[in-house]
């Protein structure tokens, strides 16, 4: 009987303690005490991630080639855009994109997925937070490739939901200006949907973001590389067609990303 009483006392004690902490965190924000806990565990978090992400299994040559491939794809898209615009204006206003002063580098300190280094991650945890002016909705990029969006922020950490997650959805266009909606399909794959059936999609076309910046300057900027079309799904009876898009970068191999803190 005494054991049973102590059991219920323990249960209610820790339940109310947990509920109390939950409401304190909600009302006073994630700073303060929990920010201190974050600062204390951040080095351990980084250490665990670097140890268990098995860097000695990573193929450095393959990573270098992927990086070069990604930058070449962006160059191809840039080249085609330049052909359409006025050459005199481009010579005058040509700048690198996105601007480096708007990018905040962030290390990935967590990449939870089913089997580490094997299955595809759905989100990153980065070592930047509110104290670094990170806000929910800011785009995250790597070498002109869109990676995802910040979805949760605390004082020292942020969660980046990748574009391949099912909850991700944004407008995009192909090299020749065909518009569609890119949706995450999971397992490192994207779908380009709601494309008019009369439009001609080509396998191998590069898909870039159309841009959905809001009045606060938050969102995906235009002309960031999303991926390449790998297959097209078109039937005669449908008004719309869709395509499978494969991101150029292997997100599971990334160690650092960049957060777009402002758009100009």
């Amino acid at each position, binding site marked *: 009987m005494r054991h049973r009483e102590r059991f219920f006392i323990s249960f209610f004690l820790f339940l109310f303690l947990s509920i109390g902490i939950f409401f304190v965190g909600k009302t006073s924000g994630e700073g303060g005490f929990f920010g201190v806990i974050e600062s204390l565990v951040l080095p351990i978090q980084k250490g665990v991630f670097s140890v268990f992400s098995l860097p000695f299994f990573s193929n450095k040559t393959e990573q270098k080639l992927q990086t070069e491939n990604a930058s070449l794809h962006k160059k191809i898209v840039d080249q085609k855009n330049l052909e359409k615009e006025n050459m005199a204006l481009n010579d005058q206003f040509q700048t690198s994109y996105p601007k480096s002063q708007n990018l905040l580098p962030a290390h990935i300190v*967590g990449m939870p997925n089913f089997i580490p280094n094997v299955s595809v991650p*759905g989100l990153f945890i980065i070592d930047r937070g509110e104290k670094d002016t990170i806000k929910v909705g800011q785009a995250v990029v790597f070498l002109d490739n869109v990676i995802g969006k910040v979805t949760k922020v605390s004082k020292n950490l942020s969660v980046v939901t990748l574009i391949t997650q099912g909850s991700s959805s944004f407008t995009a266009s192909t090299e020749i200006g065909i518009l569609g909606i890119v949706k995450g399909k999971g397992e490192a794959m994207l779908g380009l949907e709601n494309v008019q059936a009369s439009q001609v999609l080509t396998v191998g076309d590069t898909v870039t973001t159309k841009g959905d910046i809001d009045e606060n300057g938050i969102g995906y900027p235009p002309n960031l590389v999303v991926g390449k079309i790998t297959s097209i799904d078109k039937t005669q009876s449908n008004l719309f067609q869709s395509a499978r898009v494969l991101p150029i970068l292997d997100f599971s191999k990334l160690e650092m990303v960049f957060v777009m803190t402002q758009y100009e």
Partner: protein
Amino acid sequence: MGKRLFLLIVCLFGAFLEGVLTSIPILLCLLTVISIHEKSNKIFVLAFVSGVLLDVLRVDPVGLRSIFYTIFLFLIFLYERKFEIDSLPFVFFSSVIGSAAYLFIFHHNMVFLSLLFSGGFSVILFFVARIFQKKSLTTDFTLLH
């Protein structure tokens, strides 16, 4: 005291693994097996501390996982009066059901595979705990004689 500290370290390590590397509910499996094996109220301390740590690592509202683990362990202890919980089928099914609720609440992918792995992982932990228990009983018996 040494055993409790060891269990706390194991739970914190499990929280770091789940917070940084994997989406499988490792901590839930650890807490399930420890609660069934130890049958002590101290499990609520482990659940609270490791739940808070995991919430901090995953940038979730702090306290959410502690609430979940506390209620889940409470339900396990309620079953103790009615059923034999120190058994393989109970360990497996409680882990699977608990993981299903956990994955539903905290929105993870690959639910089916995660459930299977959780059940299997808990069973393995249960066997390991049994082996350690038998070894410590044998050592105590030898010392007595």
